[in-house]
């Protein structure tokens, strides 16, 4: 039996929300809602917590089982169809994140290294620890994400000199609509945390743990977007593809440490690799649940290679993943609103099992 502490679970959920979201989403949120962009996160979080409550209530009806196991046991055929659709969705997230990280490394760090080589190197590092299971994944994530949280929390102190609260004004200049638009863009990224009930039973994953993960992930994202607005400025942030990278580049501690961004990126990179790894883990677990005779560990490498191939074939260039953000919420409404509501209403244990 794999053992994962509550703290590891919180960081796993928060990391799954935070690590890839910070790459370029803030730029689109600020472009859409200007100085009110920060409102998008709290509004979207309310919907995500509601969906999480529905999922947790459904999983609670099946003690000792996660959502994948409960669905295949209670409604074998329809459950497998739902899991297949879910796997397709998480495959798309895996492909998108892999491409975004590869593009970021290529643009910001290794401009002369071919994209394919960067992708292959990331994949070669992900496969071994995803094979080892969720326990190893949670522990690796715990190490790197905890340091990343500390690093993010120090950014306000280091950018205090450039902090300008006047950038927030005028608040609600165009009413609530920009804030709602910003929430529309943020919702699919925050909703990714809904992966947790698919992996853990309520013996380990309580609603309180899930909400803590949501609050931590969203809190860090909120902090970064506030700094984007107040330190870098609305006009400039909305024009960058990677606004948080630009924010960190503002930090110059001393004369000899003028590339502080490299330190932060070197902490963030293993954390985002854990996020991509978790997507790969849920894909292999989902297929194992649909076809129980398949060995999960052996599926990881071929699924990873398929994802790598798709990450280059599915997008023309580095800008397309960001363009997708504007229509992606429509897809996610089905997975993060309709599916939790339907499962909550219609998936109950058999009466005999309930009486036992």
């Amino acid at each position: 039996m794999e053992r994962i502490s509550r703290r590891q679970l919180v960081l796993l959920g928060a990391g799954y929300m935070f690590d890839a979201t910070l790459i370029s989403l803030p730029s689109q949120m600020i472009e859409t809602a200007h100085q009110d962009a920060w409102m998008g996160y709290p509004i979207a979080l309310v919907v995500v917590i509601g969906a999480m409550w529905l999922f947790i209530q459904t999983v609670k009806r099946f003690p000792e089982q996660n959502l994948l196991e409960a669905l295949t046991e209670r409604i074998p055929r329809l459950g497998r169809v739902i899991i297949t659709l879910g796997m397709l969705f998480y495959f798309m997230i895996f492909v998108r994140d892999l491409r975004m990280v590869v593009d970021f490394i290529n643009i910001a760090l290794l401009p002369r290294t071919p994209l394919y080589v960067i992708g292959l190197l990331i994949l070669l590092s992900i496969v071994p620890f995803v094979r080892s299971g969720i326990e190893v994944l949670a522990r690796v994530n715990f190490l790197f994400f905890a340091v990343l949280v500390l690093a993010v929390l120090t950014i306000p102190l280091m950018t205090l000199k450039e902090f300008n609260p006047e950038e927030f004004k005028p608040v609600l200049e165009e009413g609530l609509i920009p804030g709602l638009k910003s929430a529309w863009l943020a919702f699919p990224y925050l909703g990714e945390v809904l992966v947790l009930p698919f992996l853990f039973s309520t013996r380990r994953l309580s609603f309180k743990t899930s909400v803590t993960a949501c609050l931590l992930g969203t809190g860090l994202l909120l902090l970064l977007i506030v700094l984007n607005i107040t330190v870098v400025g609305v006009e400039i942030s909305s024009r960058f593809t990677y606004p948080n990278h630009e924010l960190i580049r503002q930090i110059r501690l001393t004369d000899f440490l003028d590339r502080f961004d490299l330190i932060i990126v070197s902490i963030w990179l293993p954390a985002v690799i854990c996020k991509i790894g978790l997507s790969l883990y849920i894909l292999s677990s989902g297929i194992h649940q649909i076809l129980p005779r398949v060995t999960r560990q052996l599926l990881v490498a071929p699924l990873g290679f398929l994802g790598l191939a798709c990450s280059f074939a599915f997008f023309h260039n580095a800008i397309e993943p960001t363009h997708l953000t504007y229509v992606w919420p429509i897809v996610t409404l089905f997975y993060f609103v309709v599916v939790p509501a339907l499962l909550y209403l219609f998936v109950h244990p058999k009466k005999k099992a309930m009486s036992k």
Partner: protein
Amino acid sequence: MSVPMLLLLLGGGLLYVLLDWKQLQQSNRITRWLCYSLYGFAMIIWVVEMRVPGKLAVFVWIQRSLEPLSPFLRS
């Protein structure tokens, strides 16, 4: 994508097949064939992408087909 790059990617895939060879041979038929077909499918995508770049841009199709449903688009 150039031919050397394609060979590099094929080499990466082949490396994992070789590393897993013993386990793949010992595993059941479904696992074995599912793994081989996933590798094969990945290779087909690489080759198609090399010969006709942008042919399989699935996310672009998704984006274009969902644009009419989106409440707002990039300004």
